[in-house]
């Protein structure tokens, strides 16, 4: 990796002040499970690395009347060990369980998962986030795109958002608190993620001098039926080929409100709003789940090699809905 300056921050203000005005200036180090490999492969080459592991106030899971606040530094293991998370937000627990590396669960943080860079192999091989050749042509449409996006893929971005937790957090109505030089701003979880339209954009709304501080799941989402289902080729140490997180509010066995969010299918966690409507007023069974799955993927436009992911995403939706309806933990 390139040489860099290592800075150890102990307060938010200090951390923010150490960040720069461009992405090349500084990078935030939490668990390091993604940043270190990006740096070793020279995909990112920050001049400074700001270690936030000891920054106060970014740890712990706290409940109050408004909801549950998860610090950005909470590790996957801490998330899974938390009784509230496990019992009240099963979709989030399922998603964390899907991270099948014990090492990554031990070191990886919630904030890191949400800010993780895409796994797109063109990106990781140094062709940039938008995967272009030296003439500026995208390598993805005519290239090896079996793991790329099937939704939101009109270009120039074709990667898939790699976050394991984002679909569940979006389905649970979470908000993200971002710390910056002027204090804190709050964005809804879906608004955090963007599809970059040019080389100057990244995959979320964070500015170079901001960092993710915490995630708040509203109290209204407590106890919702929810589930995440990931389709992985390998049982462990593998990225999902497609994933779906769902929440449903049931009254008298009928859905009054449902949310379906897909993971690993688009440059952002994909809210399948068409499908949400399909659920309203119905009890969830195999055929309702299947038609919601159809609706969720109705706008999918596969690339040359990834048509199979449309089917996998449908299965993920169907199985997540059936699991949520059963209340399977």
């Amino acid at each position, binding site marked *: 990796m390139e040489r860099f300056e290592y800075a150890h921050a102990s307060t938010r203000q200090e951390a923010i002040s150490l960040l720069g005005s461009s992405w090349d200036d500084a990078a935030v180090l939490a668990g390091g499970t993604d940043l270190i490999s990006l740096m070793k492969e020279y995909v990112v080459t920050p001049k400074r690395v700001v270690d936030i592991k000891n920054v106060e106030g970014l740890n712990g899971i706290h409940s109050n009347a408004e909801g549950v606040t998860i610090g950005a530094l909470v590790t996957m293991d801490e998330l899974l060990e938390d009784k509230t998370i496990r019992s009240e937000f099963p979709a989030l627990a399922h998603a964390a369980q899907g991270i099948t590396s014990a090492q990554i669960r031990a070191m990886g943080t919630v904030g890191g998962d949400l800010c993780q860079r895409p796994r797109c192999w063109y990106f*990781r091989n140094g062709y940039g986030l938008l995967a272009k050749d030296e003439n500026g042509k995208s390598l993805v449409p005519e290239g090896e795109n079996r793991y790329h996006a099937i939704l939101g893929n009109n270009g120039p971005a074709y990667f898939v958002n790699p976050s394991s937790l984002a679909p569940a957090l979006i389905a649970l109505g979470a908000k993200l608190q971002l710390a910056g030089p002027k204090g804190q701003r709050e964005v809804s979880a879906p608004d955090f993620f963007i599809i970059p339209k040019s080389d100057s954009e990244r995959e979320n709304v964070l500015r170079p001098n901001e960092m993710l501080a915490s995630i708040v799941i509203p109290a209204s989402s407590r106890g919702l039926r929810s589930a995440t289902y990931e389709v992985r080729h390998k049982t462990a140490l593998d990225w999902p080929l497609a994933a779906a997180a769902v929440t449903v509010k049931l009254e008298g066995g009928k859905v009054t409100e449902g949310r379906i969010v897909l993971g690993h299918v688009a440059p952002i966690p994909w809210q399948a709003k068409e499908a949400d409507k399909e659920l309203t007023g119905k009890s969830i069974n195999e055929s309702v789940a299947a038609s919601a799955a159809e609706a969720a993927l109705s706008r999918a436009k596969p690339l040359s090699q990834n048509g199979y992911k449309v089917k996998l995403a449908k299965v993920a939706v169907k199985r997540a809905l059936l699991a949520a309806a059963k209340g399977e933990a």
Partner: protein
Amino acid sequence: MADYHWPPTDKCSLIGRRISRLDGPWKSAGRIKYSYDVNRPNMLHGKMVFSPYAHAKVVSIDTSAAEKMPGVKAVEIMTEPGKEVFWVGHEVAAVAAETEEQARDAARRIQVRYEKLPHLVSDVAPSKAGEHTKQLAEQTDGNPDQALQQAEVISEGEYGASVITHCCLEAHGQVAEWDGDDLTLYASTQNVSGIPGEIAKANIVSSADKVRVLTPVMGGGFGSKFGADSWGLACARLAKKAGRPIKMMLERDQELMAAGERPSMYAKVKVGAKKDGTLVGWQSESWGTGGPDAQGGAPNLPYVVRIPDRRVKHTAVLTNIGPARAWRAPNHPQMCVITMSALDDLAAKLGMDPVDLLQKNIQMTGQLAKTYSAELEKASQLMDWKSKWHPRGDKTSGPIKKGLGVSMHTWGGAGHPSNCNCVIQPDGSVSVSLGSQDLGTGTRTVIGIITAETMGLPLEAVKVNIGDSKYPADGASGGSTTVGGVSSSTRRAATAALNQLLEKVAPSLDAKPDDLEAVDGEIRVKGNPSKAIFWKQACAKLGTTPITGTGQRQRGNDDLLSSGVGGAQMAEVSVDTETGIVHVDKLVAVQDCGLIIDLKTAESQVYGACIMGITYSLFEEKIMDEQTGRCLNADLEFYKLAGIGDFGDIVVHMMTGPGYDERGVIGLGEPPVISPGAAISNAVANAIGVRVPTLPLTPDKVFAALETKGAVA
């Protein structure tokens, strides 16, 4: 005199038992030093500079910036300007620096200008490869046209397996250290005795005897570590220039890009049979990547089952994927999946159980027919085949479909040249020395067992010296040739040493050497156990001069060895037809390999091969991008390897006893890795009712197959 022939197995105290490997505890405790772990005083670190292009001409190389980098001590150009490079990962230059990080940074500062040239890295059929083809073989036996015309049932299909790599746990590389004109290489190699000659040939030393190669243990080779390799030569040259030892191990991405590629193989097959299942004719047109020079060679189809009337044609597609290297049973897994899939499809068309089809034609397997037949029976029993098997397409409801598949394979496994010295010291200690190497297979343990058995001593009493080129020369460990070679030379050396001892001891026991035997830590008179002398007392009679016995694997036929094995495997899979994901629930491997020296390490070889087989069946694929010429998954993130959750039971059965033991020792490394692909592919076809034509059996391919006619879901 003691007889060098193998004792009957019921008379053996060690041979044929389940004995844990000698180096197991050291490995488990992390106390053993692999090449990767060797750290010499004052050592530098080296890094290779590889071509980023699949085909290019090197126009110029400027090392001046790199030389000025902190810590840099030496730079070496590997490909001179004007020469071409033929794959991403082709060596261009190398650099050594004080730390690994400095070497890595410096490697990036070596400025190479390339002129890009056209490449082909896609794994395409010859018709789409333009000029990049080379027809390697066309052969006709009998009259295949007539045979196929007269066949009552014909099955046609296209089958194959993709390009994969070796994925050795320990990357390629070495530590090079000079002492004057003498070079020591701590190399991760399958060829300890052969490397010095290669270094001499490259004019790095004045003669081969100036080179010492040390490989006490190594972390896997699978056919990719026979040579000194460009990084070996670079490391030695850099160490000479810098005047300091250098460690240079490949990075994981370099390992996947540059350290060897198993060629793909695909074939269009037409096979015909009579209604009763008798095979009558075979025709295949095959092709596959063979690297830039078609080193992969041509297959001999059909595999195992020699259908008399056949026409075969093979074309190599010349690609810039990387150099083809032997991969555990070169070409066999590919030939096996092509042949056994075709026969399985034919069985389905005939409405026959595929095991019955194989048994019906078992004579076509040649001299191993009886073995194959017995192995199929044993495997059927262990799989409970008869009660579990159903015709194509699991008709039960729900998305999970279960199925069974069968395959057979063969391999030679004759022992390679081997020399052994066995020394008995006057204090009773015994050592054997061979310039062989233990790739992780149990070679060290096998050598110890044979020596101890010969001397009538416990295994712990024998010191095994291997992995050093100063020891008597031994062959490269490839093609399952090691166990045969070292077993013969060790047995002969140990017997020769023992016989010298018996001659010394005979007078004191008032017996002829011929009447003595070494058993249970004693030298005693045969048939009269009371006339005995303890081993240590016997050795004390040597005075001050140790005994050395030498042994050599006999040229040509060696009556301690044999070659030619068969094996049968059966797989049981569950296919989730909604996700296309295949899970191997059970894999039964039945294998013969003649006389087994250590049943435990033999079984362990088969378990390992099954896991490797499951991995290439379901996951492995070197994914190349035609636009950039690069391997996109040169990592263990998207170059997927099976984990413990990806398979269920592995049941191993070794064929031993009469008919097997008396054949002598035969190699085992390759054979069990051959069949998993075919057995698993056949099981998937049996489960879902339709063939997934090529390995790996990924969800996209399973869906594509399900969409074709005949699928159950």
